[in-house]
């Protein structure tokens, strides 16, 4: 449980920092690289979410007796 709560703040931190990097890069004029960075960050976070979703569904399946 504690690991998950840390993960929540991790995602929030990553989101904020990526938003800032996006802004800085956009001001430098390298807007396409900004979009790449955002996309990579999104993929990383997506991986984390999907992993959690998998864990959740495993548990639900075991509780409600194997859908």
């Amino acid at each position, binding site marked *: 449980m504690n690991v998950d709560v840390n993960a929540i703040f991790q995602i929030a931190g990553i989101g904020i920092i990526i938003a800032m990097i996006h802004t800085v*890069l956009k001001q*430098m004029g390298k807007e396409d690289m900004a979009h790449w960075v955002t996309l990579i960050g999104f993929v990383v976070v997506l991986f984390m979410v999907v992993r959690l979703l998998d864990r959740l569904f495993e548990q639900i399946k075991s509780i409600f007796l194997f859908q």
Partner: protein
Amino acid sequence: MLKLAGALLLVGAGTMLGWMHAGRLADRPAQIRRLVRMLGQLETEIAYGYTPLPEALARIGRQPGDPLADLFHEAADRLAKEEAAVTETWRLALESVWGRTALKNGEKEIMLTLGNTLGASDREDQIRHLRLAAKQLETLEPEAAEEQRKYEKMWKSLGLLGGALVAVILY
């Protein structure tokens, strides 16, 4: 506790990387100006001192530690040791020193072209080419200053943010 120290270290390292990159951008206009001055010194040596090329180069390259001075010093060294053509020696010296300067390809092209005429033609011609190279470098300087102004702060922030990002991911 240890994790926090590690994270701070990462952020610090990222910030330092950003600062160093910004420093290179800041160095470039100053180095261009100094290079122009040194070419002027070379011109003076050749025009009024009637000094042979290797000696002139060695004299200018005397200040230690400065990568630009090292260029002249290196060229003088190689000329004294190997009997290769001046153009080739100049090019080799350029290649070996360039990594330590903050200058970019534009300047390198100008210096390479200069190497083609150094020691290959008569005094008047060499002076003309030296002046030409100096003028070309001068035109590059405002562009370098502009680039510095635009990107210096950006690289500093980018370094900090990048370090913070890696720290958060490896949390």
